[in-house]
């Protein structure tokens, strides 16, 4: 986990990571879901594009991932109708579609402002464990208390 004292510091670090990092699975409001694609298409897109999977292969894999969160019924829905927690889960699933990804959760509480603590975030990340190489959480220093009891902290 990386906690920052200001927005500028956080964004600078994130930009550097994005510029030099490879296989980044970014979960951030700066990388929203594509609004004219369904949940299924949003998640499948990366495998179809980068690994040149057929539509059916990529969608079968996506449905399998959606089942982990019991979200199969959201497959045909689009971004605007999702609630914040569902949107976060879909973004995480999209991020783990990157080949051997470093999962980067950029200010998860900005994506889900109503969340009191990070239990939901840990739960979601735990469900996709083994499908990513490393998980980094970027957030502000003042949110440190909300992450209590989870990942090890690094100032």
């Amino acid at each position, binding site marked *: 986990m990386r906690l920052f004292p200001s927005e500028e510091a956080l964004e600078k670090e994130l930009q550097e990571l994005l510029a030099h990092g490879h296989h980044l699975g970014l979960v951030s409001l700066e990388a*929203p879901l594509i609004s004219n694609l369904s949940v299924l298409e949003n998640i*499948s897109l990366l495998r179809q*594009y980068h690994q040149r999977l057929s539509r059916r292969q990529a969608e079968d894999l996506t449905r399998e991932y959606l089942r982990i969160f019991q979200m199969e019924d959201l497959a045909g829905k689009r971004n605007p109708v999702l609630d914040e927690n569902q949107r976060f889960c879909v973004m995480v699933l999209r991020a783990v579609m*990157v080949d051997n990804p470093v999962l980067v959760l950029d200010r998860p509480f900005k994506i889900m402002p109503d969340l009191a603590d990070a239990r939901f975030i840990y739960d979601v990340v735990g469900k996709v464990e083994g499908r990513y190489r490393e998980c980094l959480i970027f957030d502000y220093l003042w949110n440190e208390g909300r992450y209590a009891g989870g990942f090890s902290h690094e100032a």
Partner: protein
Amino acid sequence: MNTFAENIGKTAIHSVRSLQDNLSFAYRIFSRIFTPQAYNSAVRMVLINQIYFTAVQILPLFFTVAVCLGIVFIGVIGKYLMSIGLFSFFGHLLMGFVVTEIAPFVTVLLIALRSGSAINAEIAVMKVNKELQTLAIFGIDMINYLFLPRIICGIVSVVLLSCLFSIIVLASGLIYSGFFFEMTVSDYITVLMESGNFFDLLVMLVKCAVLGFFIVMIPIRYGMRATDELTSIPVAVLNGMVNVFIAIVIIEVLSLIVMSLLTRLV
């Protein structure tokens, strides 16, 4: 006086740079069309969806417009030619004017109004919503994934729908000619076959492809110019559509010049 001259110079430089940008963007996209690596199942999916939205959904409106315009054009042209005693040129006018000029023009106008504006708004909204940034972050090439299928769809749609427009107009002309000019089906077909020129049809198809390319490329280009503000969307659409109409006129004029030059050479 100096300020006036400076303004003219600035406008000229701006216009030339804008044209240069558009042409270099067009070249980048055109070269991708022939790159097999640009195509994958995601791109094909977008292409199929776009062809459905652009060329299939428009069919009822397109059919109605083609029938109405066909009857009007053929009625007016036929009656006028009869009144001045030049009805023998009926076929030439149908093939040389309605098929090679009116069909591409009406088709391109309908597609530009319907799909060009939609694509312009779609790209501008994606830019404002940071969805283009999403594609960049996940390493998805915008040209391959977003632009290429839309432009190929524009080319295919304008070419096919222009042909369809010509067929509908000529078919409605057959009915009209039968009723009002007492022409038999075989007379009508003979007139068309004698007036048809393969070279004209070839130029028409090339013109349709060029029009299809630009009426999609220009809205994409202007959609990309939207800023992060919502208010930039209508501005981007407005500028894009104005430039689409300018491009249509320029391509029409250029095609006429090329056609007359080639006719002289041949």
